[in-house]
């Protein structure tokens, strides 16, 4: 059941009604049953994987909690350095539970996502004929895997208590709105809200519904149209002879498409959760207004970035081998450059993993490396950049410099699309085709209306992209748009709501049965 289907909207309406009409004690059970129903709507064959995750994480977290209690009891009786020793002893033992948790869950993820890629590569490289596994990829696999691993590590660290009720843990791991494409919430941020009793709140219902509506508009009005143009150019550029600015336009459109698609999906699930009274973690913070690639990754897919930082980058940077490397580099290269080498390497590995996370294809490796180089170099060359700014008399806080930085970051992000939109041989072809012809007239001679979307629909898409960017600009200025609308009188408010509903009904692109294409990030 896609979240952009009429079925899902009916499912959500019935669920909201049951959630608030039945006794409040049952609310978390209703959410659990709804999550199970949602998950099973994709087929029962892949449900074993999520069950293995829930059961394994439940028992491993309980075992870790027992060790934490023993450790605390012994530390309470000890003094000074003894405490450190006890902590060390227990940490050694406890680490094995975490290793087991990671092996089981990451093992499932890797086997399901990457086994066929590895087999295909072996066959291609060595001329073997190993059969691919063709395993069914469960919905939201990497999202619930990351959430569940984070949960066990947080129990290991003593940050949260282990959940004693396996069904409640199942709700945290499999909460259906966050199952499709995240956000990857930490247990401590949502668990209490998931299990709490919530009163019906009219304002929350309005705000949540508005946000869902905005999400559907992004997905059905912008992303669906943009996808047609992108697919037309991407898959036919050699046969149809698309060159120069046509390809460049497609690349820029791809940036808006992925943003509208992914953030639109987030608006739908965060809006629905808001109606229940559950505040999920935001995944986007106006990413196209970032002034650097590092900032962009702090504003784009925020929860994945936070997960990678907490559970990969920090542990790696502070590991013994990286600390040793850091000390050596500081001795040889001096303090300012030397101390950046180890974290830069850790950042490199983290971005490599982020790249691989995006897809089972070797094309994602250069995508990870591309971002890693940009982030690491911005830190390593910080002093050099500062001296250049002084040389060219550029003031750091001038408006012009800020606008330049925003545009530069957006262009770099767009260039990254060359790495993820195509397979390796086509990627080179696309780059060559971009520079093979200077044809700016495509913007005025109507060529853009022949890429699968007619003139009227093309301009609908462009107008809504402008609306999306203006709305982000207003948010960037600190204005809460939904609250600003809520402060208007009833006539203005309803004009806005009706305009949004009519825009969605008239301009939304949905096929028979109200089924739009699936979300891009749903596959991850």
């Amino acid at each position, binding site marked *: 059941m896609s979240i952009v289907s009429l079925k899902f909207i009916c499912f959500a309406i019935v669920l909201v009604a049951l959630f608030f009409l039945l006794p409040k004690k049952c609310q978390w059970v209703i959410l659990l049953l709804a999550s199970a129903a949602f998950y099973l709507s994709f087929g029962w064959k892949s449900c074993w994987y999520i069950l293995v995750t829930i059961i394994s994480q439940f028992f491993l977290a309980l075992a870790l909690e027992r060790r934490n209690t023993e450790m605390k009891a012994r530390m309470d009786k000890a003094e000074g350095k003894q405490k450190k020793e006890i902590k060390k002893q227990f940490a050694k033992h406890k680490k094995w539970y975490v290793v087991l948790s990671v092996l089981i869950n990451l093992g499932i993820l890797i086997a399901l996502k990457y086994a066929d890629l590895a087999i295909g590569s072996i066959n291609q490289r060595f001329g073997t004929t190993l059969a691919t596994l063709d395993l069914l990829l469960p919905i939201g696999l990497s999202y619930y895997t990351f959430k569940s691993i984070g949960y066990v590590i947080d129990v290991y660290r003593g940050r949260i208590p282990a959940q004693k009720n396996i069904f409640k843990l199942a709700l945290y791991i499999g909460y259906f709105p966050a199952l499709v494409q995240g956000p990857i919430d930490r247990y401590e941020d949502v668990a209490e809200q998931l299990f709490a009793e919530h009163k019906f709140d009219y304002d929350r219902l309005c705000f949540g519904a508005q946000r869902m509506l905005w999400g559907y508009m992004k997905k059905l009005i912008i992303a669906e149209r943009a996808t047609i143009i992108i697919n037309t150019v991407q898959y036919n550029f050699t046969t149809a002879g698309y060159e120069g600015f046509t390809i460049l336009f497609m690349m820029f459109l791809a940036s808006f498409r992925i943003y509208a698609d992914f953030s639109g999906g987030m608006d739908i699930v965060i809006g629905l959760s808001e109606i229940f009274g559950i505040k999920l973690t935001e995944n986007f913070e106006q990413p196209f207004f970032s002034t650097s690639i590092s900032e962009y990754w702090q504003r784009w897919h925020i929860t994945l970035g936070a997960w990678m930082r907490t559970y990969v980058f920090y542990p790696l940077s*502070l590991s013994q081998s990286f600390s040793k490397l850091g000390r050596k580099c500081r001795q040889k290269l001096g303090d300012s450059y030397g101390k950046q080498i180890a*974290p830069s390497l850790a950042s490199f590995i983290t971005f490599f993993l982020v790249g691989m996370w995006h897809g089972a294809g070797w094309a994602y490796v250069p995508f990870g490396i591309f971002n890693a180089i940009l982030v690491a170099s911005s830190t390593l060359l910080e002093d050099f950049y500062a001296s250049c700014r002084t040389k060219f008399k550029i003031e750091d806080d001038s408006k012009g410099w800020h606008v330049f930085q925003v545009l530069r970051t957006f262009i770099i992000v767009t260039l990254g699309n060359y790495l993820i939109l195509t397979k390796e041989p086509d990627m080179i072809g696309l780059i060559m085709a971009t520079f093979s012809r200077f044809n700016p007239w495509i913007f005025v001679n109507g060529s853009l209306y022949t890429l699968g979307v007619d003139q009227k629909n093309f301009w609908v898409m462009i107008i809504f992209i402008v609306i999306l960017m203006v709305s982000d600009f207003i948010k960037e200025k600190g204005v809460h748009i939904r609250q600003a609308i809520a402060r208007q009188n009833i006539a203005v408010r309803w004009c806005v709501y009706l305009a949004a509903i009519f825009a969605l009904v008239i301009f939304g692109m949905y096929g028979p049965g109200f089924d739009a294409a699936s979300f891009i990030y749903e596959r991850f």
Partner: protein
Amino acid sequence: MKEKVLAILNGVKKGVDYEHATALIDDGILDSFDIISVVSDLNDEFDVDISADELEPENFNTVDAIVALIKSLQ
């Protein structure tokens, strides 16, 4: 101890009013690279071993929180 922590923070990133800042991490004043540099300097200066387990915003949002973290590890 507080003065030494302030000196380390200023050494990593200048131009921040660390004494009055209340959300060094939550507001993105210190990024992940800055944090690693701060931790590495704190480990050397105070002979402590700050691990990844302690790298949570509440331990680094204020100078006082950093001081409290070091004291708890000494």
